[in-house]
């Protein structure tokens, strides 16, 4: 009886609540669209490795872009708001942050991470939660291969940095001019760290190096745990190549320092991610002198008219130079804003359509994405008319750009112990 009474007293309340809720929801649903288009900010979530050298530039650069856009009046009168999440370099934390960004903070797009493993973990979530995600720094080809495999679900992901394959192509393009044409080099040994991102990189190296006239006489995969590189350099030297083509990111300081202390006479050329950081000269006590590395940006390199003003603004506000994914994150905020403007909406499907038609000159070149019928949909287009990449060399504590010629600000120069052409 008691129970019944309780229920009886409760039920009128229960009956009333849904009616109110439905009314409220209806009222909101009718009211918000017009309101949102005029006043609500556009929210962009940034999930990044705030404590890592490379990742720390991502939220800062995104904020800089948002502030500039807002100062110029915003997007159709709406301001851009950056919502930042530190993922502590963890894929699990990134997934939680992504869920929070989409479900609770209701962001309209996400800029996420420079680590391939993290981006691959987020990719299915971008599909499930129908939220556009762009990575400013991951390289794995699998990110865009997944889009090709299941376009309907994975179309919300965009690759805002080069794939490993296009990085290898960029290295080959520059090597053709700098090594084969200028230095008459004929042979190379490929030396890469054993990691997911170097598998497609090495496969492309082995394809494109012979095409430009560099015969690959050995291919060495180095364990990322290696501390003593002497035996590896020793083996390479015995094979007498003209150049060592590198694919290193997690290892960086040790092979660079040991090559110098052992005075290995063969130049190193290719990808050396840590060398792109402005602190790498200090990190290696200058042993990086003469090392050549591929990048999409560099200090004092005016890739486009927007590059140097961005670097100057970043340096002025945050006191240091942006890392490579600072440039891309900055551009991403701009072309997301541009896509929202063109779409006239933040609807995720319309936003995807608009982003696919992106044609935006940013700090690293002209940003256009590959079409959905290509093997790498939503990967950046690479080439002379879009993004070429650069080839820089550390010289006396400075990062000097050597390629492509129209934005070069120095000439190739090696320390004394490197003997170019000694092998022949």
């Amino acid at each position: 009886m008691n129970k019944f009474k309780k229920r009886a007293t409760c039920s009128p309340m229960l009956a009333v609540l849904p009616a109110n809720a439905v009314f409220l929801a209806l009222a909101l649903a009718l009211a918000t669209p017009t309101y949102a288009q005029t006043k609500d900010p556009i929210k962009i979530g940034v999930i990044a490795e705030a404590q890592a050298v490379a990742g720390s530039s991502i939220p800062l650069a995104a904020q800089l872009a948002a502030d500039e856009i807002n100062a110029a009046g915003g997007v159709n009168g709406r301001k851009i708001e950056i919502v930042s999440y530190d993922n502590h370099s963890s894929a699990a934390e990134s997934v939680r942050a992504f869920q929070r960004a989409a479900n609770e903070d209701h962001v309209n797009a996400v800029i996420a991470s420079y680590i391939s493993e993290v981006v691959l973990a987020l990719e299915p979530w971008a599909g499930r939660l129908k939220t556009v995600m762009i990575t400013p720094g991951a390289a794995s080809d699998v990110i865009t291969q997944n889009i090709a495999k299941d376009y309907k679900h994975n179309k919300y992901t965009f690759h805002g940095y080069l794939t490993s394959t296009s990085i290898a192509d960029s290295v080959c393009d520059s090597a053709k001019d700098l090594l084969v044409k200028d230095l008459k080099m004929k042979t190379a040994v490929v030396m890469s760290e054993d990691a997911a991102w170097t598998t497609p990189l090495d496969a492309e190296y082995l394809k494109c190096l012979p095409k430009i006239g560099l015969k690959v006489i050995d291919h060495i995969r180095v364990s990322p745990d290696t501390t003593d590189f002497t035996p590896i350099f020793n083996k390479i030297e015995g094979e007498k190549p003209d150049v060592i083509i590198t694919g290193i990111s997690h290892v960086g300081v040790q092979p660079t320092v040991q090559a110098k202390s052992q005075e290995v006479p063969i130049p190193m050329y290719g990808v050396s991610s840590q060398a792109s950081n402005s602190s790498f000269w200090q990190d290696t006590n200058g042993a990086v002198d003469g090392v050549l590395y591929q990048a999409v940006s560099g200090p004092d390199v005016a890739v486009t008219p927007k590059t140097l003003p961005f670097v100057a603004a970043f340096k002025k506000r945050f006191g240091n130079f942006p890392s490579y994914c600072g440039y891309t994150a900055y551009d991403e905020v701009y072309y997301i804003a541009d896509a929202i403007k063109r779409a006239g909406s933040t609807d995720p499907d319309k936003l995807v359509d608009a982003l696919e038609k992106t044609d935006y000159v940013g700090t690293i070149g002209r940003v256009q994405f590959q079409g959905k019928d290509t093997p790498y949909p939503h990967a950046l287009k690479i080439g002379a008319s879009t993004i070429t990449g650069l080839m820089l060399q550390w010289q006396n504590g400075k990062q000097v750009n050597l390629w492509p010629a129209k934005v070069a600000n120095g000439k190739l120069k090696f320390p004394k112990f490197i003997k170019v052409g000694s092998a022949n």
Partner: protein
Amino acid sequence: MLFWQILIDGFAISSLYALGATGFALIFGVSGVLNLSHGALMVAAVVAAWAAGAHLHAGPYAGAALGVAIGFSTSLLTYFVIVRPLQHSRKIREEEKEIFILTATLLWGIMIQELIAYLYTNNAKTVAPIVEGVVWIVGVRTPSNEIFTAVVCWLVIGLLWLLVNRTRAGKAVLAASMNPRGVTLLGIELSQVYIAVWAIYGVLVGIAGVLLGMFLGVSSYSVGPLTASAFAIVVLGGLGSVSGALIAAYVVGYLETMTAYLISPAYRTIPALLLVVAVMYVRPRGLLGRR
């Protein structure tokens, strides 16, 4: 050619191992403490020496000195904050103290490792070498720094030998390692001996760390492998035996170098660790162990 290459490279790395493991063996011999924060102390010394150069623009000598000073002070800190309170605790039973200290030093090492990664990232760090350039020895292009490393290691080991065998304080340490109770009967305060040993250990660890930083470089990830290699060497040599540790350092150093050159650098540490397991089966007291 390859033979000479292995001989020269192996000698340098083995000398470094010998210096690192000597202190580790000394601590165990005298106080029965297996210090599993060993690797962390070495890495702390390297990072300090690196930071002196990178942030304070100190020269190589000043950087090295700061590295050794940090090794020394971190070692004493480890003793006073981690080891001594446990040794003196009345709440822990005597027979359980060893395992408590083992666990505490392991966790302390991880704390130092995380702190270094937090403050200076987990990228590898190297120390500016005091001597640069290369010399040719029997056709092998050898970094002068490698010779410098071997010479300094043996100088320091030699000084340690003199200290232990020729000075009064050193003799007390030696006596304490043989019979701690006997030493107290002679009126020597055992805790004074412990402090002396941890101080000596700190200097050794600092020097070994700085030399390793100049030779190969380390990152915060190196903490575990460095402790493991010192531990393996000391087990192989016989727990507590300094001369055993010296011999074992060369066995391990050359085995690793041969593996790296003849098989693959990726498998560098595996044969040495297998050897340690085999020694545990066949001769648990190690090469020159006395326990």
